[in-house]
């Protein structure tokens, strides 16, 4: 009974943390644009939080650069269980145009496990909303 209540509250109101690991900022603006009145992700109960310790879902953009790799692992460890990761944009999926550069490892899944991939360069805010809804549907 308590489990059902907890699960219901998780689905109804996931809190997200926005993590940028060396991206060009286009996907990041689309994530923030999803909060604005036109797309309005807050009607799903989604809130943009600052600190990893309060978040349920990590929305990650950007290819992983060498400098930020350890920080990503540290942040992932700070998010309490159960946690989910959404990789937004082509850079987070596989590195986009930066594949092969000396400072880049590739997509986010080289460093932390990912649940949902959102393609696009940049991914439209509608696609990001769709990803959040699909993730909630699977819970």
């Amino acid at each position: 009974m308590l489990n059902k209540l907890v699960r219901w509250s998780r689905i109804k109101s996931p809190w997200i943390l926005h993590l940028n690991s060396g991206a060009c900022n286009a996907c990041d603006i689309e994530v923030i644009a999803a909060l604005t009145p036109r797309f309005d992700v807050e009607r799903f109960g989604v809130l943009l939080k600052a600190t990893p310790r309060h978040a349920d879902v990590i929305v990650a953009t950007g290819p992983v650069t060498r400098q930020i790799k350890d920080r990503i692992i540290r942040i992932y460890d700070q998010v309490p269980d159960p946690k989910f990761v959404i990789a937004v944009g082509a850079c987070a999926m596989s590195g986009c145009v930066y594949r092969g550069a000396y400072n880049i490892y590739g997509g986010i899944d080289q460093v932390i496990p990912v649940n949902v991939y959102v393609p696009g360069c940049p991914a439209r805010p509608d696609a990001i909303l769709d990803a959040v809804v699909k993730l909630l549907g699977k819970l």
Partner: protein
Amino acid sequence: MKFQIPIGPQHPALKEPISLRMTVEGEVIRDADIRLGYNHRGLEKLAEDKTWIQNIYLTERICGICSHSHATCYVQGVEKLMEIVPPKRGLYIRYLVSELERIHSHLLWLGVAGHEAGFDSFFMYTWRDREIVMDLLELISGNRVHYAINTLGGVRRDIDEGQKAKILEGIITLRKRSEYYFHIGANEPSFVARLAGVGLLTKEQAVSLCAVGPMARASGITRDVRKEDPYAVYDEMDFEVGTAESCDVLGRVVVRVKELLESYKLCEQILHKLPAGDIVVKAPRKAKPNEAVSRYEAPRGENIHYIKSNGSDKPERLKVRAPTLANYPATVEMLKNGFIADIPLIFAAIDPCICCAERTVSLVNIRSGEETVVRLSDLRRQAIERHKNAPPKRNAVWPF
């Protein structure tokens, strides 16, 4: 008694991960140090392995807000190298997209400035209007960001009469709304008082530290590549360079507002003067050994690309210098002798391609070595509280 505060790479306030270390004494910042490198993607080395056309797509993705600026700067330089001149209509369309990009970037920044000063409704309003510009850009090019409308020798897509009418309609709506917001902003004494006197950068400092863009123009220096080094269509257009004399964050807001209004004027002029003709000229595959320096006025400042060719179909050297890098020494100067509570505002004022999120600041007490974590949202809330209860500065006037 000096503390050192690191503001680490995962900071929600700014999109780009950079790391700052501030040495503070009480509430006043004495010194600041910036650690770059989280965003270093090895672009200049990648560019040497790709052909001229492939590099257009690579340079577009340097930055998401001013993607057209980098692509256009690169394409201008390569056209100089190959000594080809694109047709007039192609140039007009290219610079129409530039001005639309400037509009969207300044609206974005106004929202960010409002959010950092505690004025959240302003943020929501300007971003809602920004969606109008994004729709227009999607109409012309097919994508909201990374338009890919440039190609060597011209542009890839044409504008027809229906699109032209829609753009003009959109600009009329935007202009009406923008003027309404500026009227609100000017008559809101707490907003003006929050921004006045913060982040001072004198004219001498701005000149010696080579500041660019609205940072330099807010300190009274008339430096705009569109007027100094007019490229393509700008010597046929009639517009003014906006400057301000107050050398602080309020001056930077005023400069950007002036530029926004000038951009509306420029877009209308470009559309009315659009000539008929071809949009593209064929470009050769290989370039003779030559070198070119290409400068362009991006929304944040001056963008400069240095391109060198060696006779093959790949560049020998591509050097890119984005405007925010040029403003970093000036930022360090501005942060000195400022308050901790003003950090988000000063950082937002240089417009570092970053958006709103919060930063976690960890205060290290040097003597005892213990660490306390303070969230920047708390700092921002404290700053807003403090300024709400302080008497408004009677002499802070909207200089417009």
